[in-house]
């Protein structure tokens, strides 16, 4: 074999496998997809359904923002419809999109490839998780048509036990989705423990896997609590057992404790994989080894542990004791530290690098900017006396979106653009990629920064009517939401164009040193033609651009730059 062939996995033409056997054409027919146990196909199927959910949740968001152009009644929707809209926007985005988002789609695709493995530990369970997702999503969709819930995505009692919308069906849907999440987590934990190749010790594992691992631990440990809570809620509604309803002798705040015991860790289920993605991207696109690997890896674990101990900060004004509030406030500040450490390490990775402003890197920069704001505004909410003022206002809405959208969704987009050539064997338009990233960045800030200001002035969230003094903010926010919408249309168009007409991608278009870049693009059914060589996952400097190949190839030892 020549140097080039060995560097590209022996596939020739830069490692592109579109014209040969690959996982996309290995078997044909709809049945070969629906019954597949191939983690790559399951990842792609997740990607399709998750993006569809994102689209649906996004439509609800645009409708909500359109109503809020004016403070009074709207011809577009009545108060009850508005209440259903924001509930569905939240429930769909959280349970169907953000929680499964990165792990189930990108994680499923990349995890075994990064380990140099053929598949996850339990491929059948993986497919079962997917169908549990589909089942849960179906229940949720049916509930939408038969009496869409109006409780807010948090299902607070006793409102949720007394409203006449179809709470039971929606909650049953979320219950089933929880099992999808638990099984995926279980699968990933076992895969990471058991299928790491020889030479890949825990601390030679790509940081994305640390992120996924931390997430999986939380999924397994916290999701059952949500499941039990939701069952109790169903029992309360159906049988009137009186656990949460004070009219029956229950305690409504107990529900909030149970709910947030899951749902706060769930916020980290959403952000940890995103942090993992950023760790990969910042090294590859700075063409430099990640800075402070151990601190980043350990901070993921620290976040996973601390995330279980801060749920009470959702209840500073709910009537918990002053002592509990004090402890939860303290721990809340502590959980901020690992995130800060990561940000500093990512910045240090860029120092003296060769920063390549390709589309995925633009999302990294966007992430640092937006997640920076999202994290820092958490300090306002962690400080007890200030939280009392800001709680349940638009300030919280903005903070949440800066973390979940500015953090998770931006990282998801970065990861999607990064692994896209690997998934589908085609490149997308770099020009339109940058335009899309810019539109999303501008649209997002216009939408949500205004909400910080509005919230600090006391605008309560979940409000159909609002005071005329907030109209200007709401209008600006809605304009931002439209810009954001246009950004996503642009992204959808060029990605679909790429699927059909994109330039064939090389095996390693970005010069990544993790194992998935040693497989062809797209990878074959069994992932690797030969067992890939395990090395330092951040030795990106060992890969150099080769114009003849049209991608990155590993340097021969003689070419290694001095000092590395």
């Amino acid at each position, binding site marked *: 074999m020549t140097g080039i062939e060995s560097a590209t996995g022996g596939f020739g033409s830069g490692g592109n496998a579109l014209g040969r056997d690959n996982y996309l054409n290995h078997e044909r027919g709809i049945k070969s997809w629906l019954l597949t146990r191939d983690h790559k196909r399951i990842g792609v199927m997740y990607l399709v359904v998750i993006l569809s959910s994102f689209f649906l949740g996004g439509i609800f968001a645009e409708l909500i923002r359109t109503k809020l152009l004016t403070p009074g009644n709207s011809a577009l929707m009545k108060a*009850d419809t508005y209440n259903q809209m924001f509930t569905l926007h939240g429930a769909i985005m959280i349970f169907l999109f953000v929680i499964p988002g990165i792990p189930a789609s990108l994680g499923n695709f990349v995890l075994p490839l990064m380990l140099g493995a053929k598949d996850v530990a339990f491929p059948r369970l993986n497919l079962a998780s997917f169908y549990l997702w589909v089942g849960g999503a179906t229940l949720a969709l049916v509930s939408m048509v038969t009496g869409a819930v109006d409780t807010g995505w948090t299902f607070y009692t006793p409102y949720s036990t007394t409203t006449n919308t179809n709470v039971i069906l929606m909650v049953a849907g979320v219950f089933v989705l929880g099992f999808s999440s638990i099984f995926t987590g279980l699968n990933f934990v076992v895969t990471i423990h058991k299928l790491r190749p020889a030479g890949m010790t825990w601390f030679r594992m790509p940081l994305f896997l640390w992120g996924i691992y931390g997430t999986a631990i939380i999924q397994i440990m916290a999701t059952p609590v949500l499941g039990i809570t939701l069952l109790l809620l169903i029992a309360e509604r159906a049988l009137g057992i009186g656990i949460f309803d004070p009219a029956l002798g229950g305690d409504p705040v107990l529900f909030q404790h149970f709910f947030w015991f899951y749902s706060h860790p769930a916020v980290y289920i959403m952000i940890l994989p995103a942090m993992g993605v950023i760790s990969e991207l910042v090294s590859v696109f700075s063409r430099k080894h990640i800075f402070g690997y151990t601190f980043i890896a350990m901070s993921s674990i620290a976040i996973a542990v601390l995330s279980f101990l801060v749920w009470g900060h959702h209840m500073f*004004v709910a009537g918990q004791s002053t002592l509990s509030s*004090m402890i939860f406030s303290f721990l809340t500040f502590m959980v901020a530290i690992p995130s800060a450490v990561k940000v500093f390490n990512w910045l240090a990775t860029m120092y003296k690098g060769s920063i390549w402003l390709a589309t995925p890197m633009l999302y990294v920069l966007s992430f640092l900017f937006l997640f920076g704001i999202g994290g820092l505004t958490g300090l306002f909410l962690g*400080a007890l*006396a200030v939280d*009392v003022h800001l709680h349940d206002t638009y300030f919280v809405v903005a903070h949440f979106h800066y973390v979940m959208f500015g953090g998770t969704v931006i990282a998801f987009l970065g990861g999607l653009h990064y692994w896209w050539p690997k998934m589908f064997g085609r490149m997308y338009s770099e020009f339109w990629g940058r335009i899309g990233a810019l539109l999303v960045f501008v649209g997002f800030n216009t939408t949500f920064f205004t909400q910080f200001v509005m919230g600090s002035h006391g605008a309560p969230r*979940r409000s159909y009517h609002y005071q005329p003094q907030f109209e200007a903010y709401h209008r600006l926010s809605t304009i931002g939401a439209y810009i954001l919408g246009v950004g996503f249309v642009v992204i959808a168009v060029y990605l679909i164009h790429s699927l059909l007409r994109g330039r064939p991608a090389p095996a390693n278009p970005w010069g990544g040193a993790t194992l998935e870049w040693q497989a062809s693009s797209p990878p074959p059914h069994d992932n690797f033609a030969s067992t890939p060589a395990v090395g330092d996952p951040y030795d990106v*400097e060992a890969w150099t651009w080769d114009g003849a190949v049209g991608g990155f190839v590993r340097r021969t030892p003689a070419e290694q730059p001095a000092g590395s």
Partner: protein
Amino acid sequence: MNLGRDVVGRLFNWAGVQAAGGFWMPEQGSTTAVAVDHIFSLVLWVSVFFFVLIVTLMVVFVVRYRRRPGRLEAEPSPTHNTPLEITWTVIPIAITIGIFVWGFKVYLDVNTPPANAYEVMVTGQKWKWLFTYPNGHVDENLHVPVDTPIRLVMTSEDVIHGFYVPAFRLKRDVVPGRYVKVWFSALEPGEYQIYCTQYCGTGHSDMWAKVVVHRPGGFERWLEQASNFMKTMPPAKAGEMLYRTRGCAQCHTVDGSGGTGPTWKGLFASHVPIEGGRVMVADEDYIRTCILDPTKNVPVGFQPVMPTFKGRLKDDEITAIIEYIKTLK
């Protein structure tokens, strides 16, 4: 000291946090608001510092180290530096502990009412607030004297509501089956907005009320006059007031739409079919009996769920309500 206070005050103004309400935060209407805004500005400045630091480093690195001809490789630099990493772990810990301590201290003050506070009962219900004064008067707005500690004892009749006065930086969930206590002391006479912040259904965003802060002496005058509305108002007007403040409105509508009980629109002098086959004329006596002994004559199509108002409404109050019903044609 004075210099220090002056510097803090200036930073405060640049941060857009001002007594009259600036870029951030609304006007300061209570003693608490001043204390809370000081922490807000501190956190704001800490955040601005770190945000500017992060973004500046990011921009400088992108400009200096961007990939370009002649710079296709990274410069050799260390892959970790433990003392540096420990430093940027410890400094944020110290800063956040500082914010935590200050935030908790003010929170304690906010939650510890002075012993001599004037007490008002607050009831949240779908979708309005009711304020009960020590003399038994019930009002739809919260009237208080200026510069006086006010203690609110709050509960809900149905689901969880959230009592929020932005100008006072005061918020607390109002939970059914519990009594929640908060306090404040208003700084200036005026009107301040009250919101519901815990989502509670259709009319959640309509649960607006006002805090009316009276000048010294004004509150006592207002309370005396307001409590005397039975004497000062025409009976039908007084009846309407009772309808809104004594719980009638929760079950009876006045616009003809449905509810737990029969609507009052067009009720007077109408023929009402009663469970058991009788038909009664809704005259003064019928309505009076319904109020005092609600389960005696239950109209067809309704459950016998209304509580008795015997002892809760006086004779002249019942008369006022009847006069009000007469006006609903």
